[in-house]
């Protein structure tokens, strides 16, 4: 107890605690800076965020089952900006930090139902009515079956479409990505890329 009452001990402990406080505060302020920068970057995302529920509602009214509907900003470093010479005016605060471009992509994941062209058309209409200025519109359609669009014949007579059943879970998916530009120019030619 004598040692505790010693003034030197008080000074030493006091100085160590002050160093401790500084070591706690230094990263905290860095984190606060980072958080404020991130909130600025996330602005276009949050601005659109709540609207994705509207796409879901539109499509559910048409009888479709929507698994996911959302919007996200493309990374400013996305390679396709360079590939297609797309102008991107995003100014990144620092190369090391995560930086989003102002280009947003809307995506919907849904189960297949009825005519595929109709489904894509309804979904695109719903997406473009909610987000007019999105950069791309992505539709992922999940299905339990593979439709082999190949008419096969028996004894030279066409008898119909062959349907191959894979499984009963909605695991098979086809993704359609539609650039906004194409949608507005042609309004009909929406099949741009197909990933199997």
């Amino acid at each position: 107890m004598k040692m505790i009452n010693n003034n030197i001990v008080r000074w030493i402990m006091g100085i160590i605690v002050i160093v401790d406080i500084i070591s706690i505060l230094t990263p905290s302020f860095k984190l606060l800076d980072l958080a404020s920068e991130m909130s600025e970057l996330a602005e276009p995302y949050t601005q659109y965020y709540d609207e994705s529920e509207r796409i879901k509602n539109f499509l559910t009214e048409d009888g479709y089952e929507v698994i996911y509907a959302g919007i996200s900003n493309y990374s400013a470093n996305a390679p396709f900006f360079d590939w297609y010479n797309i102008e991107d005016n995003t100014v990144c605060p620092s190369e090391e930090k995560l930086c989003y471009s102002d280009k947003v992509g809307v995506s919907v994941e849904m189960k297949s139902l009825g005519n595929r062209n109709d489904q894509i058309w309804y979904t695109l209409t719903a997406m473009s009515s909610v987000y007019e200025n999105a950069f791309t519109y992505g539709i992922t359609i999940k299905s339990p079956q593979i439709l082999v669009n190949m008419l096969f014949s028996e004894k030279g007579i066409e008898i119909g479409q062959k349907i191959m059943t894979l499984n009963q879970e909605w695991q098979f998916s086809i993704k359609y990505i539609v650039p906004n530009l194409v949608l507005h120019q042609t309004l009909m030619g929406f099949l741009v890329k197909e990933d199997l």
Partner: protein
Amino acid sequence: MKKKYKDLLNKVSGYIVILAGILMIFNLFKSGLGSLKFLNIFFGIALIFLGTYVLKYEKWAVILSGVYGIALLINMYSLTKLVGWNALILILHIPMFILIINWSVFFHENDKQ
């Protein structure tokens, strides 16, 4: 404030600082002996001593523990900014508020005198 409550507040604050010190030392053994982690043992011992001085109503210790509380509060706030507010973080705020309340009560009472 009644002396009974003031004493209780001071006691709780002192033990919070001691507990913080013990946790800091415990963190050292949990993480292993890294060169930087080794500092934790000094910080932990210093906090335990600080807690004992807070229990003795020593003015400098109460001031430092209050500042420590504010520093941790800023630290927590910066974390919540990144991770988002959740129940765990809110519960962790309570000891820091106690340290700050103890500090302000201590000063308030001293000013009166």
